[in-house]
């Protein structure tokens, strides 16, 4: 086991280095018999080395599809129809992942190698009929020249690092013999054993109880520091976002509507949607029996996207002369916060 490295997280953002991963105007559509669903429609954000980007939004806003689009693992009938996903490789020019052949060798060496992913459902994310050892060793050997025994040793080591007791013995066990929390730990071990530069965590704690959730977040943060790894953390839980994220991107109907440092987002949200989302969080000083504030209206059906700014039918600051007519672009507000709303300039 290696000892934790000292905490010298380089803030690339401050030093002006370019982002490790840059998603630009990503568009992923689902072509169904009933029509086209624009699951992701122009999402843009940057991920910096060693930092955590939190992506937050309601169910169906395209968070998970965005994550899967980065690795090109969209299920049928989904297709990435536009945008760029640029991964900078050490010193060289960056590679656009979307230009790679969908199941070609190049993208597969990045999947699970440079960019790993963990999922929401620890209960079903492992094959139920293969041992953990089998599945973790497979991940290691796909991305390294280690032989079976070396890979086994490394896998045991990683299971120990994520806090699974008697890992040697558990290597030969099956998922049904593990609890949800332990499976998610094993999942993290499997994702990180290839030492990826970026970890995409798609609602990794949603299915877990609060205590286990805290432990999993703790493990992720510790390992992030040890490996100087970037995390894209996807969740609908603002409390979790506040705890783990450095930068937060708020998504609504397939678009990033606001992005900025976590403190700015929570202390001075700019987009009306972000404001509404934050005010619908339960607070500890609410009066007893007080109604929880909620966002008016419902998420529109994805095939029935409102014209103009897609949030305008639910927006408390709706301006009839523009919001339903034109789509706002992300504009800078302050130093590093951006929001797409006509309240901040009619670009």
């Amino acid at each position, binding site marked *: 086991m290696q000892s934790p490295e000292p905490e010298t997280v380089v803030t690339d953002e401050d030093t002006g280095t370019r982002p490790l991963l840059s998603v630009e105007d990503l568009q992923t559509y689902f072509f169904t018999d009933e029509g086209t669903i624009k699951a992701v429609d122009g999402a843009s954000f940057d991920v910096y080395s060693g930092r955590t980007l939190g992506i937050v939004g309601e169910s169906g806003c395209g968070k998970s599809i965005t994550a*899967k689009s980065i*690795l090109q*693992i969209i*299920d*049928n009938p989904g297709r990435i129809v536009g945008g760029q996903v640029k991964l900078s490789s050490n010193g060289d020019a960056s590679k656009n992942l979307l230009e790679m052949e969908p*199941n070609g060798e190049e993208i*597969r*060496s*990045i*999947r*699970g*190698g440079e960019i*790993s*992913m963990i*999922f*929401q*459902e620890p209960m*079903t*994310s*492992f*094959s*139920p*009929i*293969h041992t953990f050892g089998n599945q973790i060793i*497979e*991940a290691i050997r*796909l*991305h390294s020249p280690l032989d079976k025994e070396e890979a086994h040793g490394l896998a045991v080591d990683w299971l120990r690092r994520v806090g699974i007791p008697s890992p040697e013995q558990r290597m030969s066990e*099956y998922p*049904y013999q593990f609890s949800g929390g332990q499976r998610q730990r094993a*999942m993290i071990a*499997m994702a990180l054993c290839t030492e990826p530069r970026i970890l995409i965590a798609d609602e990794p704690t949603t299915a877990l109880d609060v205590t286990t959730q805290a432990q999993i977040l703790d493990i992720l943060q510790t390992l992030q520091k040890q490996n100087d790894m970037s995390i894209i953390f996807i969740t609908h839980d603002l409390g979790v976002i506040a705890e783990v994220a450095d930068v937060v991107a708020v998504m609504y109907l397939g678009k990033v509507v606001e992005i900025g440092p976590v403190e700015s987002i929570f202390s001075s949200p700019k987009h009306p949607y972000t404001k509404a989302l934050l005010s619908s969080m339960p607070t500890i000083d609410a009066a007893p029996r007080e109604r929880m504030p909620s966002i008016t209206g419902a998420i529109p059906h994805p095939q029935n996207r409102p014209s103009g700014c897609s949030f305008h039918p639910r927006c408390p600051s709706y301006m009839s002369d523009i919001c339903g007519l034109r789509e706002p672009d992300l504009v800078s507000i302050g130093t590093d916060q951006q929001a797409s709303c006509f309240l901040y300039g009619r670009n």
Partner: protein
Amino acid sequence: MLGYLIRRLFYAVLAVWAVSIISFFIINLPPGDYVTSYIAQLAIQGNIIGAEEAESLREYYGLDQPSYVQYLKWMNQIRQGNLGFSFEFGLPVNDVIGERLVLTMILAAATIVFIWIVAIPIGILSAVRQYSIWDHTFTFFGFVGLAVPDFMLALIMMYFSFVLFDFSVGGLFSPEYVTASWSLGRGFDLAQHMIIPIIILGTAGTASLIRITRANLLDELRKPYVATARAKGLSEWRLILKYPVRMALNPAISMTAYILPFLVSGSIVVSVVLGLPTVGPILLKALVAQDMFLAGGIILLIGWMTVVGTFLSDLLLVWADPRVKFEGR
């Protein structure tokens, strides 16, 4: 594990014993016995037998005793490996069905292998390339295969193989090998003659296994563990074959157990049409003639083989899916 095996064996013996009782008494249920049908047969040929003679015949065959005594006597013979005497053939049951049973089992094994080899790859292809031209084509032929009666398929294939290839279908051997003893040439002749029966007998099973494999695999392909495997960087075919296909194969394994009884009882008509020397036609004949030891012996053997087949497929399932546990381990 060992305790489980012993318990399973005990239940198997119990099941077969129950089969023997039920089959024996059901065969005896219709009014009359073998002598009755024998007399009727003779009457057709113009020979009338007196009541006295009929009585002595019954005595000779032991049919005058109460049926439980007959059953116990039969069981006692079976204990010594003797299935009884066939009135109809005038031979011990063992001799009547001996080679036919071996041929039936060879045919069953070959049919299972055929079904697997054909249905599983097609099922996988249909699921992975859902709604492709291949999927639609195989779906069409799958339904045709399910809908066309076996015996009709048999007649059509017999016609075409005779007209187009001058290959006479019927039986499992060429005339010169029918009574010959086993040799390489006879085995090769058998293999040649088995091709068409295998295709005909396997068509319905293949069609249904294609549908089952396709439906199961479509379910499995949407499971999160497939996304996990994809996110690891596994190539598409490797991950499909390693994970969801393994999960979708369980029905193929359980299906194996009932292929044998199907081949014996469900395919009598095909066997008659194709002139296959399997036990199916013999069973039909025995039941018509109320040749109870022959019919009982065949049913007993089929029961035994079904029990053994189920047991083997259960063991295979445990091997294929670690979540299936031995009960009470």
